[in-house]
């Protein structure tokens, strides 16, 4: 009798519950240094996961690709 009462109470009280809303907000995203896993599009010479290498590659691309003062002969 007591067990049945507990089960019935639990079943009725479920309706009083509220869905958790703390899952709202953006899902976690992997860091860019983890790479895409698509070798064909990955910048050659850099291995996914190598954070310093990644930063150096981006720096080199910016310095060489965008700084024409550095490229032009003096």
């Amino acid at each position, binding site marked *: 009798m007591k067990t049945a009462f507990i089960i019935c109470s639990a079943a009725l009280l479920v309706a009083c519950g509220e869905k958790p809303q703390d899952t*709202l*907000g*953006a*899902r*976690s*995203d*992997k*860091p*860019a*240094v*983890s*790479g*895409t*896993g*698509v070798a064909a*599009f*990955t*910048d050659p010479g*850099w291995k*996914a996961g190598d954070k310093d290498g*990644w*930063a150096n*590659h*981006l*720096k080199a*691309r*910016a*310095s060489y*690709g*965008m*700084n*024409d*003062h*550095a490229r032009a002969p003096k």
Partner: protein
Amino acid sequence: MARMKFICDAERCIECNGCVTACKNEHEVPWGVNRRRVVTLNDGVPGEKSISVACMHCSDAPCMAVCPVNCFYKTDEGVVLHDKDICIGCGYCSYACPFGAPQFPSQGTFGVRGKMDKCTFCAGGPEEHGTQAEFEKYGRNRLAEGKLPACAEMCSTKALLAGDGDVVADILRGRVVQRGKGAEVWGWGTAYGNQAKGA
């Protein structure tokens, strides 16, 4: 590494719209959505200036502050991204953004806009990197490929600079010293704080 930043050198921009085309092509952005666009001030008047504008990935992003469903997040590199699965297309971010960056794919009746779309600094979104799902929702993830945004890498006059804030600031500083003018970096102060002079 510092934060990722954009600078558009107005002394160099020739309004070719190469950055707009590069962005559209790289991410297969649909008609009506312009993640990047070129704005010309005093168009037709001698001395007109053009700048390429997109999401500036602000330090204290107003879009993040006003989003009622908290769909925005910031990566370790300071790139402001959003989750399209959470976005409800309310448009608050577009009212808050000083650069007009948030775009909506439709303009239906009763305010049906669709999910917001904006420049991702070519950093994809909260899907598995390099997947079709990420590409369809957010475009290519060039940053995770070890590359910089396509718009800046394609810029014919190298007016648009993108990358590590220290590096792009050094490049611009070198140019300003060389030519002796053009230190105005429009949008820089608004996006990244008031340390640098800018609108």
